[in-house]
Structure formats: structure tokens, C-alpha cells
């Protein structure tokens, strides 16, 4: 049984294949890379390359046309960004709106390290009962008081 699952799993990436023909291997690689970096807007957890949604198909065609026409990766991404927004990129561009996304985790890590440092450095609070010398003094006083002649 598990063999069938394994087979399905291995075959999965091959499911969304179009009949695009390329002039050279480099174009094909660029197309492949781009469609893996771009997100399908219908089934949001799939890339354009993985998705069989109608829109993903259309957008793959647009990307293909542009690769063939010799546009740069940057131009193709901008084309989709202008229409669909940051969401199409799995790796959104770094700009003020996405700062929290990009640097938030690092900020949280630094904050956690800072708190850890503070906690680790803090001296344990003095417990009066641990002060041996003071205890000794108190006991001595008590003995003195008891043994004091009336």
C-alpha cells in the first residue's frame, strides 16, 4: 500500500506539465524556476508550476510568452506584481510594508536572547535564612540572653 503512496508522491510534481517548447535549455530552466517562485492565487499554497488551476495555466502561458520574448526575470515578476500584488511572490520584495515579515523573526530572536541574558545574569535574591553569619549571631544572642544571670 505504502508503495502506491510513495509512487503517487514521486509522480506528483510531474502532474502539472504543459506542452511548451523552448529554444534552448536555459529558457526552459528560467521558465521552470520562475513558475516555482510564483504563487498560484487560486490554490494559495501551490506555486504556478504545481497548480492545475485554470488561472495558473493562463499565468504560466504569460510567463512562457515573456521568457520566449527575451524578457528578464525582473520584468516578468514586475508584470505579475503590477497585476496581482506582493502575494504572487513567494519571496516578497524588501520594502517598508514587508519589513516586519523580513526582519520580524530576527527581531524576536534578538529580544529572546536579550531576555535570556537578563534572566541568566540576575543574582539570586538573598534569602535571610541562608545568611549563616546572621543566624549564628541570632543564636548567640539567644544563648546570651538565656544564660544571662537574673
Amino acid at each position, binding site marked *: 500500500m505504502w508503495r502506491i503512496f510513495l509512487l503517487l508522491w514521486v509522480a506528483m510534481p510531474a502532474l502539472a506539465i504543459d506542452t511548451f517548447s523552448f529554444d534552448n535549455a536555459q529558457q526552459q530552466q528560467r521558465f521552470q524556476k520562475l513558475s516555482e517562485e510564483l504563487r498560484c*492565487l*487560486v490554490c*494559495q499554497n501551490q506555486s504556478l508550476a504545481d497548480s492545475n488551476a*485554470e*488561472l495558473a495555466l*493562463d*499565468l504560466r502561458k*504569460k510567463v512562457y510568452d515573456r521568457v520566449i520574448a527575451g524578457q528578464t526575470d525582473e520584468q516578468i515578476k514586475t508584470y505579475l*506584481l*503590477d*497585476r*496581482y*500584488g506582493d*502575494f504572487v511572490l513567494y519571496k516578497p520584495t524588501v520594502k517598508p510594508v514587508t519589513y516586519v515579515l523580513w526582519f520580524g523573526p530576527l527581531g524576536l530572536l534578538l529580544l529572546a536572547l536579550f531576555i535570556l541574558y537578563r534572566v541568566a545574569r540576575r543574582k539570586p535574591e538573598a534569602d535571610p535564612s541562608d545568611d549563616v553569619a546572621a543566624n549564628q549571631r541570632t543564636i548567640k544572642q539567644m544563648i546570651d540572653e538565656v544564660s544571662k544571670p537574673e
Partner: protein
Amino acid sequence: MIRKLIPLAIFLVMAIFLGIGLTLDPKKLPSPLIDKPLPVFSLPRLLEPARQLGSSDLKNEVVLLNVWASWCASCRIEHPWFVQAAQRQLIPIYGLNYKDSRKEGTQWLQQLGNPYLASAFDESGDVGIELGVYGVPETFLIDRLGIVRYKHVGPVTETVWQQELKPRVDALRQER
């Protein structure tokens, strides 16, 4: 005492943020088209193929552009509202018949009523891509200068009209 409340405070902050996250609809994506001119297009009309309907026709008035298709289930939900809105003359409504067949699109209008002043027939879906359409139905609010001012994704209902669209339409009509 205050120290002991810190974990509770952290928990509350997280709960609030996660709570906000739960109420957000991940299908609603901000459109980069807002406050930009409607992309230039010109398409044959659905019912009168000989005539064109294009971006230049959606000017001089505050209008809605509703992206619809006969194969789209949610369009069926919102359609009665549009028919009613057309009867009440709330606002001029144009349609973009997206990736449909002329036969089925026409049938749909005949059976369910035609609230549109005209529908552009976008068989290939190319204009849809220019508009950043990713899930029908979508409804664009366009001002007098032909600038996209708002986009609603999902069916338009009376509630959506009252809460999201009408206040904006009223404000845009005030603009000179």
C-alpha cells in the same frame, strides 16, 4: 506582582493577534490596481459582438464593473442583487464576462436577467489578467476619471453594498 503578570500579558497580546488572524480571509488580497487607472482594454460586447466595450466607456460616471461567468457558482448568489440594483438604479453596472462561452453567457442573462448596461466578452481571460482577477466574482468601483477606487472579491450582497460600496460611491459622487 507585576512580574507574575508578564506571561499573562504576553499570552493576551498573542491571543489578540492570533484572533485577528483568524478573522482575516486569506482569499482577500489587496489589489495593486487601487487608485490606478483602469487598464486599457477593448473587447467585443457579449450580446452585440459587433460593438466594442472598453475602458474608455467606463468613464465620466461612478460605475461598477462586475466580473462574472456562467460557470461561477458565487455569481449565481450575487446576481439577484445586481438585477435589483439595476431596477433601483443605484449605480451604472457594467459586466466583464470572464472565460465564458458566448452561448452560455447569453443564456445566463436571458434566464436570470441582465442588470448590465453592457458586458465585455473576455473569452481568453486576458483582460481578466490585466485587471488582476483571481477569483470570480470580483467587483471594481471606478470613478469619473476612470480610476479604480475599490475592489470587492466575492459576491456582492445588500450588506456589502451598504457597508463597503455605498459609502465610497457617495463619497466619489461628491468629488469634483
